[in-house]
């Protein structure tokens, strides 16, 4: 019997080693390779708790192994009569008190971080408006896609989230149909997008970490939300502050939909206007639309949130969305021939936002409500009210 236990232990040890050898996961999506302060704090807390818990497991395993090995009947003999021991006061005090001390060591940083990471007060001004000095992004989760609105700048995009590095990015989260959960593992823990009210939290993306991952992180939906829950991924592009501002300005500059250039795309644009426009906007406004905003569609990383971004996949997606993302809301809302689908996809692949086309001064102005800085009509006031409750 002893051999069995020794074997069990060896296999366990080898498994653990293998796991460590295989590393800490990919740096654009692993919680073990934090890309910013929030993720780092959570990682530190994990390590602290793992150390304490490994100590506990070690103590239990050693005592347990000794107890089993020493007290086998084959060793003790068939006639050995163990002495009944009712209890031992000293021992019981020890194994009650030591865990309490260990838990206090864990509880103190836990409570501290709970309060620290819940502090989103800077994202709103005293009047309850979005604070233009901070980066605030409204996230709306839909079955099975994400909408990102930059309220201070009046910019809306979807699927690809763009964030600035080295600063707190505040997120106001809302679920549009059912509950989802917004998770960027490398940057920090998740928060649910309730349908009942807005949740707020913040994440930080370090410039160094962003450079290491080619400025790209993976985001995921973490709450079961229907058949295509597994496919509700998104990408996060983390840009240096000035590039981020330029991107916003570029998006703002698209006041009219990008005009198709090629013949096919022009034909596609007409079909799009007839069949798709009802749900999909091609200027970066109109938060809360039925379908994802497509203003910068051609610049995106993925089709349907998880497929490689090429025309073939796009056509496949438009032709048969149900197969690629079961349960999505686009299936059956239009009737296009294969030819029309090719034209539309030609058009969509031209929906690109020219880099550097935007005016940074105009961006600043929009943030501060055209200079007078007092009232901003373009923001939706209801969001701000809800936010208070959400907190």
């Amino acid at each position: 019997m002893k051999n069995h236990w020794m074997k069990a232990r060896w296999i366990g040890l080898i498994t653990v080693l293998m796991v460590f050898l295989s590393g800490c996961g990919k740096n654009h999506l692993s919680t073990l390779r934090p890309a910013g302060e929030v993720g780092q704090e959570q990682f530190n807390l994990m390590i602290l708790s793992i150390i304490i818990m490994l100590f506990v497991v070690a103590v239990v395993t050693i005592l347990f192994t000794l107890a089993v090995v020493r007290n086998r009947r084959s060793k003790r003999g068939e006639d050995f009569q163990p002495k009944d021991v009712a209890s031992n006061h000293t021992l019981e005090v020890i194994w009650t008190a030591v865990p309490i001390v260990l838990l206090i060591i864990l509880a103190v940083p836990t409570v501290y971080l709970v309060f620290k990471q819940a502090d989103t007060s800077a994202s709103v001004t005293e009047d309850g408006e979005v604070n233009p000095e901070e980066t605030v992004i409204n996230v709306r989760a839909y079955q099975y896609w994400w909408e990102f609105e930059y309220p201070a700048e009046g910019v809306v995009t979807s699927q690809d989230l763009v964030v600035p590095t080295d600063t707190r990015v505040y997120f106001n989260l809302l679920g549009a149909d059912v509950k989802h959960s917004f998770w960027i593992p490398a940057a920090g823990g998740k928060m649910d997008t309730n349908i009942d009210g807005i949740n707020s939290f913040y994440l930080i993306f370090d410039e160094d970490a962003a450079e290491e991952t080619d400025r790209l992180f993976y985001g995921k939906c973490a709450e079961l939300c229907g058949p295509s829950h597994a496919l509700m991924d998104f990408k996060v592009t983390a840009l240096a502050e000035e590039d981020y501002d330029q991107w916003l300005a570029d998006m703002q500059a698209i006041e009219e939909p990008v005009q198709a250039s090629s013949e096919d795309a022009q034909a596609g644009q007409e079909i799009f206007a007839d069949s798709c426009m009802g749900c999909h906007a091609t200027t970066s406004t109109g938060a809360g639309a039925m379908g994802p905003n497509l203003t910068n569609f051609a610049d995106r990383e993925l089709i349907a949130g998880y497929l490689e971004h090429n025309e073939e996949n796009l056509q496949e997606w438009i032709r048969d969305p149900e197969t690629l993302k079961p349960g999505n809301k686009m299936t059956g809302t239009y009737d296009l021939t294969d030819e029309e689908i090719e034209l539309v996809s030609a058009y969509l692949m031209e929906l690109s936002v020219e880099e550097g086309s935007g005016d940074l001064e105009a961006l600043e102005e929009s943030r501060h409500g055209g200079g007078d800085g007092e009232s901003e009509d373009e923001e939706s006031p209801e969001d701000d009210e809800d936010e208070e409750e959400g907190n």
Partner: protein
Amino acid sequence: MAQTSAQKKGVGSVIWEYLTTVDHKKIAILYLIAGGFFFVLGGIEAMLIRIQLAVPNNDFLSAGLFNEVITMHGTTMIFLAAMPLLFAFMNATVPLQIGARDVAFPFLNSLGVWLFIFGGIFLNLSWFMGGAPDAGWTSYASLSIASPGHGIDFYALGLQISGAGTLISGINFVTTIITMRAPGMTYMRMPLMTWTTLVASVLIVFAFPPLTIGIFLLMFDRMFGSNFFLVEAGGNTIIWEHLFWIFGHPEVYILILPAFGIFSEIFATFARKRLFGYSAMVFATVLIGFYGFMVWAHHMFTVGLGPVANAIFAVATMAIAVPTGIKIFNWIATIWGGSIEFTTPMLYALAFIPSFTMGGVTGIMQAAAPADYQYHDSYFIVAHFHYVIVGGVVFALLAGLHYYWPLMFATMLNEKLGKITFWLFFFGFHLTFLIQHFLGLWGMPRRVFTYLDGQGYNAANMISTAGAFLMAVAVIVLVVNIIMTIAKNERVGMDPWGDGRTLEWSLPLPVPYYNFAQIPLIRGLDPYWVEKKEGNGKMLPSESLTDFHMPNNSILPVVMSLGLFIAAFGAMFFPDGKDWAIDAVSGLDPKPWALPVLIIGLGTTFVAMGIRSWKDDLGYYVKKEEVEKDLEELERGGK
């Protein structure tokens, strides 16, 4: 005599006997058969999940079907396998451990098992009637309201019916343990199995009503046009999460406490040593039960309850580690200085200590709320709760199956096959779930029907699936073992393990239908052991041999349960095609027969209840002569 007549009975009369029985030992067998069936069903669902996830971008199961399978796996394993199997062992042991001839309410005991069986059948009929529930076993309200078709209705109605059975059984055990203990069986002499059953039953009494209420609200939203969870109509979905977890967390303790009880018995028996720190163990059991109600929101750290709630629930959750730690160390101290015999039940009990400790410490890691923002809804959680539920509860069920098999069937499961099952299951379990901790930390969310290539999840998922196959083989060996044992039918005598300590092992096997010819006198903790050491190895009687009272069999529990089963179909199809119904069902064809079916079903139940209420059923007396004859026969057989 009783035995020969039983063998002569036809199949029909055996079935009738089991349909009408109020004997706790036969009800235990019903729980064991039904629970075992659902355990295998849930296991098959688990295998489907692991096959689907073995490789990236797999299309073995479609996205929608996968969600149905995970929902049914969780729901089946918790409500229809783990709890009924624990009820099987509670029923088989508790009345015998406290020296009672039956439970306090034998009729209710029968009603409980039949409600569970009909509820379980109803839930599983969803597979054949348009699709199973697909919103996870937690069935969070926004998704469960949006889920099209009747899947969620099967979940709500099936759990409502079987939940009522559980609640009834809980009340029954509380009453039994408080009122029916033999003379001398004080609270502090009760075996740990009885203590944990008492505390778990109290938890059932307090925890199941929130679930019942939650499911009622869900039923009314889905079937009768209310809007408790319809946000656009002023409802709130977070309420469901609270109600569910106010039930859901104590539920974990409802499962694990009886498991602790089974292990406590096994440790003492096969170490030949009394349980170390008995009073501390009892105290820890009660404390865990009490804390169990203070921590539900740790399932909701990412819901946005705010820092105050998160901090309070984080610290409260950590506190549970203390009494659980006390238990672990007490068990180690029990085997310390003992004489350990490595029987199959003891192997499970020994393996439980390190396995459950690992599940426990990851629980404490999750109590650190900011770190839990990362773990939550990832595979880390899947790994954690399987370490607790499989490493704790399932190990206990398998240990209990081998340990109590002779008590229930008067035969022994094959030890060799039992040990093969153990080793396969033990390695399979760790292979499946250890690696899942890392998958979660690497960013893999739970409840995903597939994952993309190139995220670093491939090898780990393949390892996990390989482990699952080992567990499946283990269960197959176990089934073979059971079939062989039943086929051979080699009877064993009294105290088959040789080291029985508690009262149930002092009984002849098979246990007579009246349990005790004379109610015994209890002279200490582990009363049978006390008599072995200090007396002549026989329990002293606390009463003279006289006629005694026993309850009559009744078919009414089956009729009542069947009525609710029929009514559930009526309720489920009632909203189809109605304008006021939710989108999920308003588009279906109207079913005009739904209302009559609902009324007929409820009517059947109410009529049966009426008969039970107004028709006196006074039971019968077992004659002194019959018992004397049994005793004589036993004497002859024994010598």
